[in-house]
């Protein structure tokens, strides 16, 4: 079973110390671990059997990402498989699949989807990057911001405006651009959660018409679906993190003694740890609902995504802060894993719409 195999890998082969080494390396992840992911078939999970995949859906994605959260994995599964893979799965022609999707699944290709621009905040249709048709090529100009895995990516999927105004949903087209293509400038940096991202400038980047992924001008629906899936993925990761933080905090409170007793014997802390547990359970329940609603594509699938992202944004923040606080000075120490789980929860809170953004969707 998928969940057991991921669980086993994290327990045996992915210690916090190793994670820190991978995060601090140039690539920001371990290519060896990534190759293992491919060998074990994890990179193939969401893809169609015809494409060499396992036809996994939202539920499989959820269980994997929850484990990745527990292990605080820095390997770019979200960027490669969920975001870039999500686009390719929905749009790529056979030729494009051979060129991009097969090496992605086999682990040879790193990819990224440039969801955001510096000014776009959480609005997917806010795209100022343009693609204009030249004689025999498309010419792309614009900027993309905080592109997850953007530095490692040999394939950049660039949403660009082929018509319409800068916030129109119509007129967005997806382009497959080589990471080293002429006119592409990348400023790569680590992110505060131990992952990597890049600022990307596209200046007169020429691509041929076979670089268009999907239907011209109709990419919004693709982006929307892929980002929903990514949102579900990071929420599952967040729930895994929240559970670990709660477990570790309870454990710590039983061993750390002050005033001659374990601090876990103080009622003031007990109640707060009960609140942490409650937050985990509530979040896990919403996560299950969201995964099932999206697996079945029920009418409330989108609402469920917003519900879990709101829940994770608010109670996840609380759980993270409490875990740090109850660990005291240890909670703000780099060498203790608590700090890094907390940081990842924080960045997840800022991705794909924060709590307010999703509560607004639910209130509409």
């Amino acid at each position, binding site marked *: 079973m998928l969940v057991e195999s991921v669980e086993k890998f994290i327990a045996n082969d992915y210690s916090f110390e190793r994670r820190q080494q991978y995060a601090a390396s140039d690539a920001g992840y371990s290519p060896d671990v990534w190759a293992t992911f491919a060998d074990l078939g994890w990179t193939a999970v969401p893809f169609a059997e015809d494409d060499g995949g396992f036809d996994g859906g939202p539920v499989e994605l959820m269980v994997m990402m929850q484990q990745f959260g527990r292990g605080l994995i820095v390997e770019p599964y979200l960027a490669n498989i969920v975001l870039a893979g999500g686009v390719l799965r929905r749009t790529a022609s056979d030729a494009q699949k051979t060129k991009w999707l097969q090496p992605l699944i086999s682990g040879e290709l790193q990819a990224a989807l440039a969801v955001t621009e510096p000014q776009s905040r959480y609005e997917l249709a806010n795209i*100022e990057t343009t693609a204009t048709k030249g004689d025999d090529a498309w010419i792309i100009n614009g900027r993309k911001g905080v592109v997850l895995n953007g530095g490692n990516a040999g394939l950049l999927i660039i949403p660009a405006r082929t018509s319409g105004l800068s916030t129109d949903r119509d007129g967005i087209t997806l382009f497959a651009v080589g990471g080293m293509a002429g006119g592409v400038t990348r400023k790569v940096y680590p992110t*505060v959660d131990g992952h990597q*991202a890049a600022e990307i400038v596209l200046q007169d980047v020429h691509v041929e018409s076979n670089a268009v992924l999907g239907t011209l001008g109709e990419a919004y629906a693709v982006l929307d679906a892929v980002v929903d899936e990514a949102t579900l993925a990071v929420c599952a990761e967040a729930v895994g993190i929240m559970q670990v933080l709660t477990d570790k905090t309870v454990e710590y409170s039983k061993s750390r003694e002050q005033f001659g007793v374990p601090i876990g014997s103080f009622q003031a802390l007990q109640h707060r740890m009960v609140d942490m547990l409650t937050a985990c359970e509530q979040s896990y329940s919403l996560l299950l609902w969201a995964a099932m609603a999206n697996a079945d594509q029920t009418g409330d699938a989108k609402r469920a995504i917003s519900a879990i992202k709101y829940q994770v944004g608010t109670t996840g923040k609380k759980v993270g802060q409490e875990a740090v*606080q109850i660990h005291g*000075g240890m909670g703000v*120490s780099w060498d203790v894993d608590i700090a890094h789980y907390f940081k990842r929860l924080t960045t997840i809170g800022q991705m794909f719409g924060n709590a*307010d953004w999703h509560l607004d969707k639910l209130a509409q």
Partner: protein
Amino acid sequence: MNITFTDEELAFRDEVRTFFRDEIPAGIAQKRRLSVPLEPEDFISFQKALYRKGWAGFNWPVEYGGTGWTTVQKYIFGVEMAEANAPGIITFGLGMVGPVIYTFGSEEQKQRFLPDILESNVWWCQGYSEPGSGSDLASLKMRAELADDHYVVNGTKTWTTLGQWADWIFCLVRTSTDVARRQEGISFLLIDMKTPGVTVTPIITIEGDHEINEVHFENVKVPVENLVGEEGKGWTYGKVLLQHERTGTARVAVTNYRLSKLRQQAARSVRGADPLANDRNFMRKLAAVEVELKALEFTELRTLAAVASGKAPGPESSILKLKGTELQQAVDELYVEAAGYYALPYVPSQYALDFPENDRVGEGSETQSSLNYFNFRKASIYGGSNEIQKNIIAKHVLGL
């Protein structure tokens, strides 16, 4: 409590404002403007500028070289310092050990230590917490055993802020275990960091900086004249100091300044995005923090007024620490929210004087929002965690 300033106070405010405008060394002002981290010499040169003006001992009585300012003057000074985005005053010497020495120290100690503290010639750090003694400070174990004319000190202090730059450390040490209450065996000792047997090990904090340390003491010989006050009374002295620390950590003026900057930031477009001022959710949260902060500002004024009328800061200083750190952290959270995706990049190297401002990732200092947020989670932990503050209030204010 009078909240309108007299003509004299207004004139004083202008003087302070002018000072901070003109007398912060230019290089430091530029670093502050560009969010470039300060070096130890920057803090020292700023504090020396204060000293030359006669303001280093802003909190000290006149007889020890302080300003002898009224409550209102101290308040104005704090506000203007924050509004000028001046560097903070490193509190360990001027705010902590100085007051302990002039209150409890011997004449010899006053003459020996106070001038260098006022003039910022000596950098002090604080040795309170130990690996096994955090919230339960009275359980501390670092031993100081009397041998002729000196103590032999053995043990470890931790979370020592800026200990890597310190010349001296003031420590709570255990001089006796044979006491009815464990607090009674604690003494207040001044230790030269250059003494053989003292070693400093860095602790890297959550955001990746080296700000705190572990300080190890192995058979460190400390002259007996470095004991402040009486042996076994260190807990009392240390508690007075902690109450000063708690008043200081309210940081209302700084939080106010940061909040007003955030409001200004929200009013304009950052990175070409729609101004956050159009985001009602965000603005309501910002306004709610403003309300709480205004309340705390008046609570602080009330505390200061009580101190001015001759009372030492009492348990109500715990309320300041509690609420002050909560609001500081609330503002940090708002900055992270405002940055959105730009809270993610970890790019400390771009906050250097020779780094072109326009080449930065994100606008201004927004990529520091998350680092500040992470770093200042410590604020509800240090100086007696907020749980301990609540215990103090419950016990000493509510009588529970």
